């Protein structure tokens, strides 16, 4: 298992949005939405991506789909660089598809369900009849009886049903990777469970690989093999799910996990792990971006930006406390 090349490799992905103002619309400052993010996804795994507002996870998803142009960085699929003659964009788009958060906005209100699902195969040269047949079979797979649902319009369906249509639509091109960008966040909990089960079934049947982006830590824990935590456009920590959840090494991850509600009326939360709101990616703090809110911050944290350092197998954290000889008093090997 371990020696297969990763299916997807992201290296130094960066996206800066210029903020324009003034009379001539000149760029006055820059939103560093995604700032040098690198990770890889192995075939057949589910990588969970978590973070709060402004962390850049949705921008990362859109960069992966090439819906927006990266400022810099490379994406490699099966070792081939995307966007070059090795892996042209149109071909890449057959391999990676996305399910969006807003189930209503993701569907053209004027097209029937089966029209929406069969559109993308027709774009890639498949005849309309075959595309419709595939669409109906997919609708059946996601639990929507074609006879009743294929001829309906999006406004006639419930949120959960629409999301199933979106999943069917994403699968119409038979992709290898599915990016789920807060795909279940807007659904009622009882419906969310159904859709999550469906996603697991489909993954098993079709040998898919998932990127599961969500702000809901419990759902991510349930769905993912590995998790990536983002903060202000950078990767704070990444590792196997259980390792991250039980032995988090980045103070932000610990704070996030500490914000989970207790579900125990006799043991309610008594303190908030973090004060204030997640900051704005326009002028991120120097050095470690988290140092302004970190309980363990020391002067070295405001001048040195930590790189991702290995904590144990496959588990990395971008924190000076995990980097040998970084100058932080809690770093391994520091003077006692």
């Amino acid at each position, binding site marked *: 298992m371990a020696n297969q090349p990763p299916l997807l490799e992201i290296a130094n992905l960066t996206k800066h949005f210029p903020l324009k103002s003034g009379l001539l619309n000149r760029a006055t400052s820059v939103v560093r939405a995604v700032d040098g993010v690198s990770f890889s996804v192995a075939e057949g795994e589910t990588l969970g991506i978590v973070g*709060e507002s402004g962390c850049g996870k949705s921008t990362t998803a859109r960069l992966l789909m090439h819906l927006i142009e990266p400022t810099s960085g490379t994406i490699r699929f099966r070792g081939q660089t995307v966007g070059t003659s090795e892996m042209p964009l149109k071909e890449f788009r057959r391999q990676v598809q996305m399910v969006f958060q807003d189930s209503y906005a993701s569907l053209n209100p004027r097209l029937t369900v089966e029209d929406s699902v069969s559109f993308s195969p027709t774009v890639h040269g498949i005849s309309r009849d075959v595309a419709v047949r595939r669409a109906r079979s997919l609708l059946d797979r996601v639990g929507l009886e074609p006879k009743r649902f294929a001829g309906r319009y999006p406004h006639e369906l419930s949120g959960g049903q629409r999301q199933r249509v979106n999943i069917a639509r994403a699968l119409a091109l038979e992709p290898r990777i599915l990016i789920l960008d807060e795909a279940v966040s807007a659904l009622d909990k009882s419906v969310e469970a159904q859709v999550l089960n469906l996603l697991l079934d489909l993954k098993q049947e079709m040998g898919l690989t998932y990127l599961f982006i969500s702000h809901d830590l419990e759902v991510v824990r349930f769905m993912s093999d590995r998790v990536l935590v983002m903060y202000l456009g950078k990767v704070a920590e990444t590792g196997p799910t259980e390792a991250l959840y039980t032995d988090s090494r980045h103070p932000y991850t610990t704070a996030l996990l500490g914000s989970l*509600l207790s579900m125990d009326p006799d043991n309610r939360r008594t303190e908030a792990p973090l004060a204030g709101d997640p900051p704005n990616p326009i002028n991120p703090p120097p050095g470690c971006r988290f140092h302004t809110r970190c309980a363990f911050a020391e002067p070295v944290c405001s001048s040195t930006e930590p790189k991702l350092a290995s904590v144990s197998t496959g588990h990395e954290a971008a924190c000076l406390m995990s980097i040998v000889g970084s100058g932080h008093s809690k770093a391994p090997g520091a003077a006692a």
Partner: protein
Amino acid sequence: MTAPKSPILSIKKLDVTFTGGSRPVRAVDSVDLELQRGEVVALLGESGSGKSVTLRSILRLHNEKKTKIDGKIVVDGTDVMTLEGPALAQFRGQTVSMIFQEPMLALDPVYTLGQQIEEAIRKHEPNVSASDARSRAMKLFERVRIPSPERRLDAFPHEMSGGMRQRAMIALALSCSPRILLADEPTTALDATVQVQILLLLRELQHELGLSMIFVTHDIGVAVEVADRVAVMYAGRIVELGPVREVLRSPKHPYTIGLLSTRGHGGKLSGDRLPTIPGSPPDLANLPPGCSFAPRCSKAEDICRQRAPEPSEIIPGHEVRCHLATA
């Protein structure tokens, strides 16, 4: 032993029907609820459950022309349905106040926060001078833990972050010292780390000020953090009501049991698949006869489909609407 005090809020047989669309929609059906002084009750449910509609009825926020409301809502001896004009305006904000899910929608974007709070204070208490109102606003900001309150009073809503705005809205709601605070999903739109802060703040304020609260949420975790009692709603009816420990540890209604199991409480959800409640949330314009949960209930029997269950007590204080739970 002290004699039982009368509840500060009492809702009896509340029915709310929306008549605006092509068919009448029964959003709330025969809801009975009592709120004791200093108590926090959570209304828990998903979309279409009627929880927000119930809350808004207490403040008479629905469009009078398109809504038919039956039943009694009594707050501290006053029948809310009979209030009109100045009495109703007085009631809103001074006796009962509300905080909403989206602070950007509840705050006026063209006035500073200080101005909005001062306006609220002076509307309800005309004898308060401008400078007194301002110092009260300052104290409120301090109480809700807004840093640099002096400066923030002169800020506009869009200049503040989500968590700050939510605190400002809480300050606004508390500005006239209401007795009851209604909260309509105030933390749903917030990040996890901010949600915890706001929930703790609300709990603190509730203790300090002795507020009685009704807290609407779709998240069981939130209900457990703040509430003394929880009322689970489905399709406009309260299907289970009881102390939060009771309902959490021994739920009796199949819907409550289903909800709790999908949330795998206690932390990790492991194993292959999540337990689910089949089907989709109910269509309020098209409710089936009998128990509205029956189409999705694995235990439904004929009686469930024919007759809607009435509330029955399991143990004092814990009641449920289910034919089979009390069989």
